[in-house]
């Protein structure tokens, strides 16, 4: 019982973390704690095979899959606190608490006989006993599991597969599109210029300098431009910002 009373509070707290964590990654970590603690509980309950399976399947495979999808979908998608149905959160909490209290009270009043323990069932080892059952009376369910797993694998492949709607753009069409853009909007068909290379700086957030002394804003990545993290090129004669033209001394990093 030591394992139980040590781990039960940890498990309940971690499960509550699943309810209250704002970030999905924190919820996933809480769930991993619950699952590893459950594995230890299984070991204490005479189920060493399930202990290993729990660690391998749940904390190994399923949690990895969860984290993988979390990273794919975007870690920043934290829960919104806006309720779409008014009072739903409160109602759900009240109903959940009522269910929990009623169920725990009912369990507390049942009379259970003496614990038999698995000493006799596990006398040849727990995996041996499980195998005798699995390939004996439960063999049909075991065979059906294989069909289920194959169906699940196929289903995941079909669901995650993205059908290409149009033909793939060939090099010729890409070149044609670029030239048409050049004719219509004047956008240069070649590669955009690379960011600036200076005597003291070689950084992606510094624009390159054009021959006439102005800087080329195209040379900095669109992401940095959108974030407003572009630093002025040292000594560039930008008509928009004449203060920078005299700046040839040691440059401070602007925030």
């Amino acid at each position: 019982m030591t394992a139980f009373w040590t781990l039960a509070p940890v498990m309940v707290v971690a499960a509550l973390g699943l309810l209250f964590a704002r970030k999905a990654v924190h919820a996933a970590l809480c769930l991993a704690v619950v699952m590893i603690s459950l594995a230890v509980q299984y070991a204490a309950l005479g189920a060493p095979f399930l202990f290993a399976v729990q660690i391998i399947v749940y904390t190994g495979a399923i949690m990895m899959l969860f984290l993988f999808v979390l990273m794919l979908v975007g870690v920043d998608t934290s829960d919104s606190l806006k309720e779409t149905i008014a009072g739903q959160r409160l109602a759900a909490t009240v109903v959940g608490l009522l269910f929990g209290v009623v169920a725990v009270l009912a369990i507390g009043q049942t009379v259970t006989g003496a614990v038999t323990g698995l000493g006799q069932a596990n006398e040849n080892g727990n995996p041996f006993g499980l195998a005798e059952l699995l390939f004996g009376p439960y063999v049909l369910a075991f065979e059906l599991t294989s069909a289920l797993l194959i169906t699940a694998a196929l289903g995941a492949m079909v669901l995650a597969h993205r059908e290409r709607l149009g033909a793939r753009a060939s090099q010729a069409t890409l070149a044609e599109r670029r030239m048409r853009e050049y004719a219509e909007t004047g956008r240069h068909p070649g590669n955009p210029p690379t960011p600036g290379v200076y005597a003291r700086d070689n950084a992606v957030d510094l624009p390159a300098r054009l021959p006439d002394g102005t800087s080329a804003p195209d040379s900095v990545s669109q992401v940095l431009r959108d974030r407003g993290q572009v630093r002025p090129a040292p000594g560039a004669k930008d008509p928009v910002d004449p203060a920078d033209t005299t700046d040839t001394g040691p440059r401070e990093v602007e925030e």
Partner: protein
Amino acid sequence: MTEYLSLSLILFTIGAVGVLVRRNAIVVFMCIELMLNATNLALVAFAHQHGNLDGQIAAFFVMVVAAAEVVVGLAIIVSIYRTRRSASVDDADLLKG
């Protein structure tokens, strides 16, 4: 025995409330996993109580089915995210009357 069942019920309740309360589809899915795990604990505790391994076999099958379910469910979430750019259950309301 009773304490194992109580712990299992508490975990199950937390998972059920989580399914009702949380809005992020992935977290809702994790709460479902928590409920499955809670029932597994009850099954293993019953096997310990009665001294035979049928409960452990049932828990084993629950794990297999949960693995298959997670694979398909996460694929659905990924495909929903692709079309709607959101993993919130509130945004998937196309069938609303």
